């Protein structure tokens, strides 16, 4: 590939002309040292030459090893031909001076002219300059090195690449194109330009990648925002999905699914209402916890709720549900002093001036005739109607004393209150098989077992933050009422771990919003 080098001065930076040269100006050897030869145009015989010799177009000058010659162009421009260099003054157009450097080194001081161009040609290049000081060297392989001493030079190659050489910069040009600029303030070379172009393409590719990846990040964040992924108390990720299924016209099912890396747990609540549900199911569901002041339009007549780890199941069913004003039914133990008002999403304190009597703020709630609590099918609690009065009369909420049999009579549940220890079957008990509160953090354990100790169940209830930290009691500081406590609890997550004598050491581990449990009556 023939490489054409074009050195062109940036016109805007050229100073005004100074002096005249061009046609008629005499070109001569102004100084020589060592053996300098010349070859007249058309001749084949070299002759030694000295200072003062006038050159004509076509004449060649050669400096021997260690020799040097200075050529004066008569317009202030001069070229110094170095050792072992071969130089030819070429025929040239009217406003151009052309010299050919076949091999070796020359240094040029070119006067600033707007009407006269000065060119240096090498075997592979043409250098056209005005008003600058530079040096050109050609090696036996034809590679060229350009050194700028003063001025500004735009350099282009036949591939279309251009570079600006400034004071003190050097440039190598090979048959492969422009090399790297060297020296102070060197700008980019052709290779560097290609590298920059490559970097730019890679950069654009990465920018595009960021934009596309943002779509994935947005999808992930949407899952978090919906509370579908939280961290549990053990530092494990819990995926949560909650949804409602309208299984029959008068029946709905609320489902909470939990998934961890190695387990799957779920909670469901299937409730049957007194009549067909409205299109907006929330109208009925918001009345589930009960209704303040006036009877509920929608109330449950039965429910079936359960938790499972897909192997073990805790299940509670109830039937015979009917609506009762529990604050004015004459049964003091049925009274509700605080209630979750779904309409306002808040717990409210009810006005009960006459417990067990009349004149209290009405609160209508479903009471059930039957109730059954089982763990893997083994009954742990509940009640069923009894044909006759039993020896130890007992009544479920809202029902007459002595007409019902409590199936959980074999179970004793003792609550610790606010202390870390409590009585267990009349004796002081301690963790883990006891009902107690862990000191400092909101972790409550509820434990009950049969008198013979053969069946038992245990609930570990935690209130945790979104990143799985157990709430401190100090987070509930200043809260004295149960309603206020429950209200604050709504802002946290609720994790409950259930195990029982029938589970063989396995657990049902659910992390949910407490609202689900409050709404379903599992938290009173």
């Amino acid at each position, binding site marked *: 590939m023939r490489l054409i080098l074009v050195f062109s001065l940036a016109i805007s930076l050229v100073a005004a002309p100074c002096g005249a040269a061009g046609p008629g100006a005499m070109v001569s050897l102004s100084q020589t040292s060592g053996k300098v030869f010349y070859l007249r145009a058309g001749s084949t015989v070299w002759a030694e030459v000295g200072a003062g010799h006038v050159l004509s177009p076509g004449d060649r000058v050669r400096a021997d090893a260690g020799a040097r010659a200075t050529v004066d162009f008569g317009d202030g421009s001069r070229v110094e031909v170095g050792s072992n260099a071969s130089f030819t003054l070429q025929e040239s157009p009217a406003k151009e001076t052309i010299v050919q450097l076949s091999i070796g080194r020359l240094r040029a001081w070119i006067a600033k002219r707007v009407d006269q161009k000065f060119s240096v040609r090498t075997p592979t290049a043409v250098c056209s300059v005005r008003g600058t000081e530079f040096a050109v060297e050609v090696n036996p392989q034809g590679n060229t090195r350009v050194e700028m001493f003063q001025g500004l030079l735009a350099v282009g190659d036949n591939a279309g690449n251009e570079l600006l050489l400034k004071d003190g910069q050097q440039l190598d040009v090979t048959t492969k194109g422009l090399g790297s600029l060297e020296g102070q303030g060197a700008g980019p070379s052709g290779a560097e330009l290609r590298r920059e172009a490559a970097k730019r393409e890679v950069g654009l590719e990465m920018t595009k990648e960021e934009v*596309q990846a943002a779509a994935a990040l947005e999808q992930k964040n949407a899952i978090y925002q919906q509370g579908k992924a939280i961290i549990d108390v053990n530092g494990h990720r819990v995926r949560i999905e909650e949804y*409602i299924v309208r299984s029959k016209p008068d029946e709905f099912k609320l489902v909470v699914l939990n998934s961890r890396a190695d387990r*799957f747990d779920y909670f469901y609540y299937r409730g049957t209402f007194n009549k067909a549900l409205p299109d907006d199911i929330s109208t009925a569901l918001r009345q589930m916890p009960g209704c303040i002041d006036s009877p509920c339009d929608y109330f449950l007549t039965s429910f079936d709720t359960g938790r499972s780890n897909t192997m073990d199941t805790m299940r509670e069913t109830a039937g015979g549900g009917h609506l009762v004003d529990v604050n004015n039914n004459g049964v003091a133990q049925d009274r509700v002093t605080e209630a979750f008002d779904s309409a306002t999403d808040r717990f409210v304190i009810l006005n009960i001036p006459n417990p067990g009597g009349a004149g209290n703020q009405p609160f209508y709630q479903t009471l059930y005739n039957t109730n059954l609590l089982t763990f893997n099918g083994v009954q742990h609690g509940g009640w069923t109607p009894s044909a006759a009065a039993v020896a130890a009369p007992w009544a479920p909420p809202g029902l007459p004393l002595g007409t019902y049999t409590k199936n959980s009579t074999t179970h004793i549940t003792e609550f610790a209150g606010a202390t870390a220890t409590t009585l267990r079957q009349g004796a002081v008990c301690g963790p883990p098989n006891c009902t107690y509160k862990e000191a400092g953090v909101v972790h409550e354990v509820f434990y009950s077992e049969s008198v013979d100790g053969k069946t038992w169940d245990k609930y570990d209830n935690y209130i945790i933050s979104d990143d799985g930290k157990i709430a401190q009691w100090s987070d509930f500081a200043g809260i004295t009422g149960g309603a206020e406590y429950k209200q604050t609890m709504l802002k946290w997550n609720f994790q409950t771990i259930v195990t029982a004598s029938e589970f063989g050491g396995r657990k049902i581990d659910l992390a949910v919003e407490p609202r689900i449990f409050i709404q379903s009556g599992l938290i009173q």
Partner: protein
Amino acid sequence: MNANAMKRRFSLNAVLAGAICAVSAASASAVEYIPVCKASLLGGQYFLKGTNANVNANGSLNVAPVVRFSDQWSLIPHYWFNYQGTKGVGDGVGAGTLWQQQMDHKVGFTGIFSPAATDWKHKHSVSYRRNFMKETLDESWGYGLFDYDKLAVGIEAENVYNDPFSYRLGFDAYKIGFPNYKSLESQTGVDPAGNPLNRELTSVDVLDTWNFQLSAAGSRPYPYEDPVVSLHATYSVLWQVYNDQRLVNRLGQFNTNKPFGRQDFQQNIGLAVGYPTTMKMWGRDLRVSYTMGVTAGHNGSNQNSFDAARTQFIHDAYSYYSFGVGPNWSVAWGDKKRPSSVNLSFQFNHQQYTGRLAQNSEGVYTGSNQWQDRYIASLGQSYPIATGFNLVARANFLWAASNQAMEKTYLYTYRTANYMMGFTYEY
């Protein structure tokens, strides 16, 4: 493949990429072969709401042995590795996780054709990216819930009419899949009474999307002949199809609208003006660049949501408008090839949902639509220590505010920060 095997494979990939980087650097003189390499190793810390994560490392490696067949044809094979042990302030703060580890591997090829005697470049690209994420104690590489992969193809035409100024028009199609994320509902069986737990028409791969994006970008000097500032504009429109996410109706049930369920249509526009100048200060010649950028966007989605815990239907839950504005100021001094630099930027972003309802701190829906403001300030410094090597330090701060006061599972109003220090290498 188990996690350890994957880890070994990725380590091997990183070593190979490093070797390519070194070999590339050694043979940099070839004209048809232009190695581009960029690497960084940084250590830092992430802070959120007054608590801090442990010091961790971030590292990245970008290798592109560009092959220049001729003046017209080039091929850019591209490998990108990224490890992030310290969260960025812009990362989601869902679940409040201070700790997060991410790893990315991306392989891509871009072919570039530059017709002779024109300013045009035609680019065709294909790439595959795999993202791994660990956020919890029970997640391991390859088994993160939010791991995703992305397969992308794209074409682009660029006219470099006045280098470096150009205008571009491109089209990309890409599929994002979350291999470890399946809806839980699709994996349920029956309850103890024998009734199915899931709803009808349950979807499985609810996060997977097909994405089709048209983008345009341009830059020009102004005034054209004697530039004082540079102007930049971008526009993109993205059609996002959730192939397996059915629409949720007013009753909280799924609609039977296969083959298309959720579709999002997102548009973004960005404008920026840059003003480069020089100044002398403390005896140094400083190269200063001021940039002011403005962005606006809109996402239109047909998806709704249903809050089962509160039995609240939320229409148009994913549509939003966004707006951003911010200046950037950078100063460089010293050798242009090895400059020292300081960069300072500030960005304000506002996002306004058109249907998603805000909740108070107790979870009660307020009736107002959700919005969030984010203020991000960044400060960075780079100092050359050897050819290609820079010592860098960065600090980022983010303030977020929102009318969504319910923050049980996701933070909306918070402050976060991080800092990173280390080395970068570029060849």
